[in-house]
């Protein structure tokens, strides 16, 4: 009965889990670095865009112990993040998988349909391919945020030597702000991602570990919303994801 397809190439599976480690190192140590001066205001100035300016991040969320330790973690972890990100993006580009996540016309409409479905405005799960339109948006936004994080990171690591990168973000202060906001957005997306995997499609965990995915248990086949129809297989309609070599 199982309709198994090989869903994720080994490069995607490897880079996904390496990225989990890299993002934990980068975000944890980054927040510890931030706590050395938990504000965006320069001395004597105020920064109205951050209502919590001056308030540090809880220490248990951070990594590195102290500023110097966290900086070493950050400047070592960045190479893991960048090497892994380049491998992922290179693979996506040359192997054609970019088509799975790059937005195309109609995605906005499909995303609205998915939202309607999740809000019980619509009864049936919209038809989808590998990912639904909301997933595609999130999975596309993540590498985009990654690029923003790397660029703004270079901008605050080398504000003089790479001053032209800093100038892309106006100046050091704003580059630091962009770096922080992009990190926060990436963590938010990652949290939503984990929540949706566990509450809508826990079967996709297998696909990101071994690569195999049972299409008969896809959210579309189960008509699954968060915590709805978590178990069981398709009653009738065949899933629409095409087989993958």
């Amino acid at each position: 009965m199982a309709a198994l397809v090989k869903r994720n190439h080994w490069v995607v599976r490897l880079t996904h889990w390496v990225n989990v480690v890299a993002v934990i190192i980068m975000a944890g140590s980054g927040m510890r670095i931030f706590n050395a001066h938990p504000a965006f205001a320069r001395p004597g100035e105020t920064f109205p865009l951050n209502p919590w300016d001056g308030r540090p991040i809880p220490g248990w969320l951070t990594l590195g112990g102290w500023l110097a330790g966290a900086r070493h973690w950050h400047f070592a972890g960045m190479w893991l993040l960048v090497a892994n990100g380049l491998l992922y993006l290179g693979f996506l580009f040359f192997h054609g998988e970019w088509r799975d996540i790059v937005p195309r016309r109609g995605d906005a409409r499909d995303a609205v349909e998915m939202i309607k479905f999740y809000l019980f405005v619509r009864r049936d799960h919209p038809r989808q391919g590998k990912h639904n339109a909301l997933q595609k948006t999130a999975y596309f936004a993540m590498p985009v945020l990654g690029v923003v994080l790397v660029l703004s990171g270079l901008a605050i690591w080398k504000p003089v030597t790479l001053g032209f990168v800093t100038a892309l973000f106006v100046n050091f202060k704003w580059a630091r702000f962009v770096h922080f906001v992009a990190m926060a957005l990436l963590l938010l997306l990652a949290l939503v991602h984990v929540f949706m995997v566990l509450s809508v499609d826990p079967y996709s965990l297998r696909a990101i570990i071994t690569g195999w995915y049972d299409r008969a248990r896809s959210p579309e086949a189960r008509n699954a919303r968060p915590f709805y129809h978590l178990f069981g297989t398709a009653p009738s309609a065949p899933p629409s994801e095409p087989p993958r070599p």
Partner: protein
Amino acid sequence: MTLDRRRFLTMSAASITGSILAACDKNPDSAQPLLRLAERGNERIEAGLFRHTAMNRVGAGAPIAGRDFPKYFVSPRMPVWDPAVNGVWRLEVSGAVRRPLSLTLDDLMKLPRVTQKVDHFCVEGWNARATWSGVRVSDIARAAEITNDAQYVDFAGFDKGYHESWDMKSAMHPQTLVAYGMDGYLLTPAHGAPARVHSPVKLGYKNTKYLTRVVFMPARNGGFWSDQGYEWYGGT
């Protein structure tokens, strides 16, 4: 292609294992060799990217920090040079030089003066602007006639033995000064009087205040914060 992939896999496996071990271990020192390796590599990359033409540019209209410019020193009390106790303040320039110098503040002020509004980048993450006046370290090096052995330079002061050593390229950057003036006035003790190192190309902790000695050397000799775990290079 296969080799690259294999090497990448080995490298990532090694680093992941290292990080996880370190994160789970009660003793985070197990990650130290890996982190030190990364610091060495980064240092080489940073030095390779470094250009004397890459300057810190602060707009003419940008406000200066003024009274809000943070002050710090490592002694229990603010170090103040007392001529009655220590004699006339002098800047001793020595080491790998043909002409060792011993400059009074007057001597220093007779050397070509540079005034620049630049950023001060603190390792903590803030930056503050001030207008600094002083002598380029490269001009002092020229006056002292440094030899080929001058690969590094140590800046030491009278703030409880504070010192930081620099790579030569950063020290010879046109924006690296021995500064004696700030925002149009002579330095105050809070900001390192009578003279201090100031440069936007290094993080604040590399910019020794209360300067007394400039020593050109064939090898680096660490520094106050570098010895405690902060990056020795500390470049921007």
